[in-house]
């Protein structure tokens, strides 16, 4: 990301002058007050939005030059977890988790699926419909879906926004494990306690969005 900026159509620039490079295998937090543009920044990262100015590359590809199929291919390499994850409500948990495989024409390895659901602590909920899951369970299903294609980059946008502290830490533990396996992880959150608790376990950089610009937060966190 080099001098990248973004503004919604007809509005003032929300983000500007952002320069950042995520090293493979790094762990980043993105923080800032509500409405500062954290979600917009994350959407830029998986090409749901394109920068209005500057240059932005992801996994070696210039986002503004990507075709529709190119964007789809990029998203298969970027796992995304939202604060309010969406699922196909008519499919059980296991099939929702397997969706990235289904849409890319890959077979589902049932043993690997069981391992993955066990990893997020939802082995017993494989056949349950998403509508009957709790908030924490939904977040873990979203994380399992986000990582089933073994993406290089995992983005989590306020993943613990609707969770209590214990569940938040459980989810963060999963993200830390992913990072330790070599994945690049970026978590957007405004929960400083969560950031401090996580930093006790993993070397993480903290980025802050303030006044429309991206800043490197210091060791005060």
């Amino acid at each position, binding site marked *: 990301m080099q001098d990248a900026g973004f503004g919604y159509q007809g509005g003032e620039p929300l983000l500007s002058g952002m320069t950042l490079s995520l090293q493979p295998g790094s762990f980043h937090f993105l923080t800032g007050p509500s409405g500062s543009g954290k979600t917009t920044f994350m959407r830029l990262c998986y090409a749901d939005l394109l920068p209005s100015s500057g240059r932005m590359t992801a996994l070696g590809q210039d986002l503004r030059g990507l075709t529709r199929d190119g964007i789809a291919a990029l998203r298969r390499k970027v796992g995304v977890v939202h604060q309010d994850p*969406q699922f*196909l409500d008519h499919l059980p948990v296991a099939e929702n988790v397997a969706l*990235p495989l289904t*849409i890319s024409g890959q077979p589902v390895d049932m043993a*690997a699926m069981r*391992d*993955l659901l066990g*990893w997020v602590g939802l082995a017993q909920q494989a056949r349950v419909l998403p509508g009957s899951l709790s908030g924490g369970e939904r977040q873990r299903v979203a994380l399992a879906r986000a990582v089933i294609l073994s993406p290089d980059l995992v983005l989590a946008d306020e993943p613990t926004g609707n969770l209590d502290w214990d569940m938040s830490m459980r989810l963060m533990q999963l993200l830390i494990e992913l990072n330790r396996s070599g994945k690049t992880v970026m978590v957007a959150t405004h929960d400083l306690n969560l950031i401090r608790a996580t930093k006790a376990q993993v070397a993480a950089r903290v980025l802050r969005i303030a006044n429309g610009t991206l800043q490197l937060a210091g060791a005060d966190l």
Partner: protein
Amino acid sequence: MKLPKLSGGSVKGLDLRALVASLTGDGASGDRIVPPTGFTAQLTLFAAGAMAFLAVFALALSLATGRLADRWAESLAQTVTVRVSAPSTEIEAQTENVMQILRATPGVGEPRLLDDAEIADLLTPWFGPDVPVDALPVPRLIELPIIDASDFDTAGLRLRLEGEVPNAVLDDHTEWRRPLVSAASRLQMLGIFSLLLIAAASAAMITLAARAALAANGQVIRVLRLIGARDITIATAFVRRFTRRAALGAGVGTVLGLLAVIALPNMEESGQFLTGLGFQGWGWLWALLIPLVAAAVGFLATRWAALTMLGQVR
């Protein structure tokens, strides 16, 4: 818990071959990404069935009028008629002269003089069954079968009759044949045009149903986009479903249409034109193509609607 081994690897693309393969066979997991039921399913089934039912009749009309045009053209072209009108004192001699000329004409069979009973039959539609043929100055009619059309010279025979028996008139039925064949051909074209209209109307209805289904499944599309589904992948899920619905509905409609055609009165029993509305020989195979054409229409209409709609949203 230890992080499990994840799939990774390259993502296999879905090309057109994969699309066709999924339409014809294993597309079960891909199908499931679209919610299974809904109003559009019933609408598509009903529309495809109704259109196939109508298509059976349009096809039957087209084939029947084609056969009718051929039959009229053939039967009327196989004979010519010579009409001899003369005073009663001369008519016998002139008729005999004509018969001799006709017997000597190349490319024809034995001329046959119609007797009074046959002439009375011909006049019955105009004068009723009790026509006194003897009392009327009815001309003599001679039917001349054409054996070899390439050897038979209509214009030459007409000129010879004019020269040798001026009261004899050669009628090769052209005056009757042309409008009849023309009418039958137009009916045939009407049938074909109706088939095209039915196909277009089916495409329009399936397109509307597909667009409604896409609009109603906005969340499904958002989720699929988020996880990296290509437009063709999303479209394929809808295309498969609508193609199968169109084929199924059209199959039922075709069977019902064929049963209705079979149930029509037999041509030999009543001799009316409409009773000839049906299929003969290879014509039945044309009817079996209707579900396949419906499936193709469903495939193209849904694919176009889906890719257009998906292309409008980033």
